């Protein structure tokens, strides 16, 4: 039977995306100019899901405030995971909201409706647990799977050996017994991982692999948001009306006649763009973004309420919400070595990441790869290099 209920796991913070996740969970970060989770819900609704269950936890208000009780006419039930104790534990929270077979997805990954339909069809046909699998070069970053005759026979988290070709695509169809299986799963370091439950299922049941090749992108690190935006724009997954070939502008946005929009670009509701600004290519402006005269923005994602004053240049830049960049701000972009936690990532194409409500007063330069924490205050004329912590005041 066709599955009509989907559980979406959206409780985690996404620590490697800090400082952008200071005020919201990873699924609410922008994929172009809409939250990642909105794209996930889109795919589910297009695949015919009639009941959404969102498992929320970290900063759950942000999810609830954004979506409210329904999405595109489909009711959403919210269940709370108070402590983030793994994906299996997250799914367990949805037990009371589900009666019957269910689809399970992560709230932070963009997939096609076709992928979901394929997993649903496999379950429909066989009655067995079905999981999307995706071909990937770098299986060591993901959960790898071994498949024999359409059946998954092995599942390994982040394998050291490179003899795997397929990874767990994170789209699952289960019957309601999955909750009992989670109950029986052994915790590791206090956490219940859904993949451990699947390993357990492999001992007794058939688990079908559904190989899919549609869109499959997620954001792990801040610069991934730029890649995700390009992907979304390339596929035209935007809701604003098309003003020109791959130029989407919301009806309530005000773009000065002398501003230039270079495709692909999306301009969200209530945005204002001043004269002689050049926006694009590969730029997503969220709601209520203001771009002053003569400002150039390329290959960047500026989230809601960001304000960029005149004569600024932003390349390869990600801003959070309500960020203010004063006149003549410069982020020239380009390859950079970026430190996240204790790891250093070399040659990432990243101008700057400026988190929610940070305020650069003007004439501020960002050395490529700079990370600015939420609420940071940067005085006029400062050159930012490296990491600026949350609430910091940088005077020189």
């Amino acid at each position, binding site marked *: 039977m066709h599955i009509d209920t989907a559980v979406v796991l959206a409780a985690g913070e996404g620590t490697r995306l800090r400082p952008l996740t200071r*005020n919201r969970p990873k699924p609410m970060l922008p994929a172009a100019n809409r939250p990642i989770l909105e794209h996930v819900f889109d795919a589910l609704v297009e695949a015919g899901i009639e009941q959404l269950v969102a498992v929320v936890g970290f900063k759950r208000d942000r999810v609830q405030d954004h979506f409210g009780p*329904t999405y595109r006419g489909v009711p959403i039930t919210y269940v709370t995971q108070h402590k983030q104790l793994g994906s299996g534990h997250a799914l367990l929270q949805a037990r009371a909201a589900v009666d019957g077979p269910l689809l399970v997805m992560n709230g932070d990954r963009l997939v096609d409706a076709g992928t979901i339909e394929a997993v649903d069809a496999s379950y429909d046909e066989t009655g067995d647990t079905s999981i999307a699998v995706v071909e990937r070069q770098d299986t060591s970053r993901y959960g790898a799977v071994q498949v024999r005759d359409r059946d998954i026979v092995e599942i390994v988290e982040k394998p050291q050996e490179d003899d795997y070709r397929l990874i767990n695509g994170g789209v699952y169809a289960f019957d309601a017994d999955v909750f009992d299986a989670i109950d029986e799963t052994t915790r590791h370091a206090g956490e219940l991982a859904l993949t451990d439950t699947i390993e357990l299922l492999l001992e007794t049941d058939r688990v079908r692999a559904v190989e899919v090749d549609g869109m499959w992108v997620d954001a792990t690190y801040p610069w991934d948001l730029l890649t995700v935006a390009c992907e979304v724009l390339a596929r035209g997954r935007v809701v604003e009306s098309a003003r020109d070939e791959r130029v989407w502008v919301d009806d309530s946005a005000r773009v000065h006649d002398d501003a230039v929009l270079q495709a692909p670009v999306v301009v969200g509701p209530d945005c204002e763009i001043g004269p002689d600004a050049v926006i694009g290519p590969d730029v997503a402006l969220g709601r209520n973004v203001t771009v002053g005269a003569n400002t150039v923005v390329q290959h960047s994602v500026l989230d809601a309420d960001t*304000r960029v004053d005149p004569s600024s240049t932003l390349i390869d830049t990600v801003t959070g*919400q309500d960020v203010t960049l004063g006149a003549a701000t410069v982020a020239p972009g380009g390859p950079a070595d970026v430190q996240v936690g204790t790891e250093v990532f070399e040659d990432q194409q990243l101008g700057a990441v400026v988190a929610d409500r940070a305020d650069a007063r003007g004439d501020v330069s960002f050395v490529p790869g700079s990370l600015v924490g939420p609420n940071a205050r940067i005085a006029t004329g400062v050159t930012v290099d490296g990491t600026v912590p949350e609430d910091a005041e940088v005077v020189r």
Partner: protein
Amino acid sequence: MCGIIGCVGRGDETLDTLVHGLSKLEYRGYDSAGVALSSDHVEICKNSGKIDDLREALSDRTLSGSVGIGHTRWSTHGPPTDANAHPHQDCHGDVAVVHNGIIENYQSLRDELVAAGHTFTSDTDTEVVPHLIEDALEAGSDPEDAVREAISRLEGSYAVAAVVAGCDAVFAARNDSPLVLGLAEDATFLASDVPAFRDFTDQVVYLADGEFARLDADGWTVTDSDGSVVEKDVDTVEWDPEETGKSGYEHYMLKEIHEQPRALRQCLRGRVDELSGTVDIGDLGDLSPTGVQFVACGTSYHAALHGAQLFREAGIPSQAFLASEYATATPPIGDALVVGVTQSGETADTLSALRAARRRGARTLAVTNVVGSTAARECDHALYIRAGPEIGVAATKTFASQLAALNLLALGTSSTGDARQVISALRDLPGHVQEILDESAAQEIAEIYQDADAYFFIGRGYHEPVALEGALKMKEITYKHAEGFAAGELKHGPLALVTENTPVFAIVTGDDERARKTVGNVKEVEARDAPVVAITDGQSDVSRYADHVLELPETHPRAAAVLANIHLQLVSYHTAALLGRNIDKPRNLAKSVTVE
């Protein structure tokens, strides 16, 4: 102030439809509820208490009938008892009536009916209606004429719905109380408000005062008081029924507090242009007021106080009046524009004040949240605040949206030197509100002071209405003593109330003369050992004298007023939650007060 519903064409589901509709109307009143179903006889079930109590009572009864009416009550005449719950019946039990409003001549009608031998079983004004219908039926009128004749005897405000045994129709009439029809493919509904039937249809017809409606198997007809058919426009409501769900929050109030960034965005959408420094509320035409008088009640009155300051600052004489006073003691109006601020557009006191102004030839403008509401239809102009449905009895997001809308009104109809700064601040407002929602320390403050004897709120200029509103919110949902004062007034009396167990919330932004004077008032309080909670953007040195600080971002003082209020909403909410109050439905209160 009650909610009524009626439906025809739902067959066996009539009872469920009525009860479901009542649950959606519960915000209008909730001390008793009842339903009546009609076939060849009329059956009723009613009792005091909430809709759930009615469901309980219905669980061991079977009511049959394919047309019906229902009612949820908020007492005006007589205490909330089973007998006083609607529907009310005639002596034979062949007629059932539900009513919202007040029948002003009920005493004389009742005396007349009692003298004629009718027996009354309740203390309500409503009960005269079924007995009047009974008289008309006995005199030989058909059911429709009988209801019509009874209605023609009534004076006052009413929305009435009636069923008569042996007649598969619902009759309804309105005067000064809201009533709307809902049109589905094979069923017709009537209700005080759209949510009652929004799950079944989005096609609605708003009745006007003096109109009479008949709903039956053939559909619906609306007639005027002479019985001539009135052509009515069918409107489509745009919001989704699910918008009234709680989306994961414990209470509607908390959900609505969190909806404020979105509500403000909707209010401002397409109306402000920062780059050119202009505001476009073009649908209002050219008002160019030479004076403005605001009329409003409760929270809306606090918004009106803010609005009056905006116009005064632009050099236009302006005052805010309590609508209930204005209606009966109307001041000289001159050429002033009279602006009614009412969330529901149905607030009886405000409607009455607006009518008093119109009788004197004044131009009127409604600032309201409800398209098609009585205020919007009766006034010359309407400015919609676009906050979306608000279910919690304590107004939250509609206050923020009222303030934003009044700023648009002031900017769009008068000129101020700093229009561009204000527009910029308005555009920043949704993001700033989100910042407070993310970071407010309100819950900690609520935990510390939940056992306080009383709460005082002070502010000056744009923050005075916020102080009043902060106190009102605290009273409404925590049932604790709370007062708001203009900061300078404290020393002229209320300071006597201040003790070490009465926290004082002081709103201070900027570092101008107003701020410095308020800081002076804070020192007076601190010297009396009262704990001080400063709501401040940190520009003045008020935090030196405060025990706690609720932080605001730096912005224009007009926008700061909206932001300060968000903290106070959260303090009240968390205090009420800690005290275990019924937050969405505080005792003795109802959402929109449609009685004077």
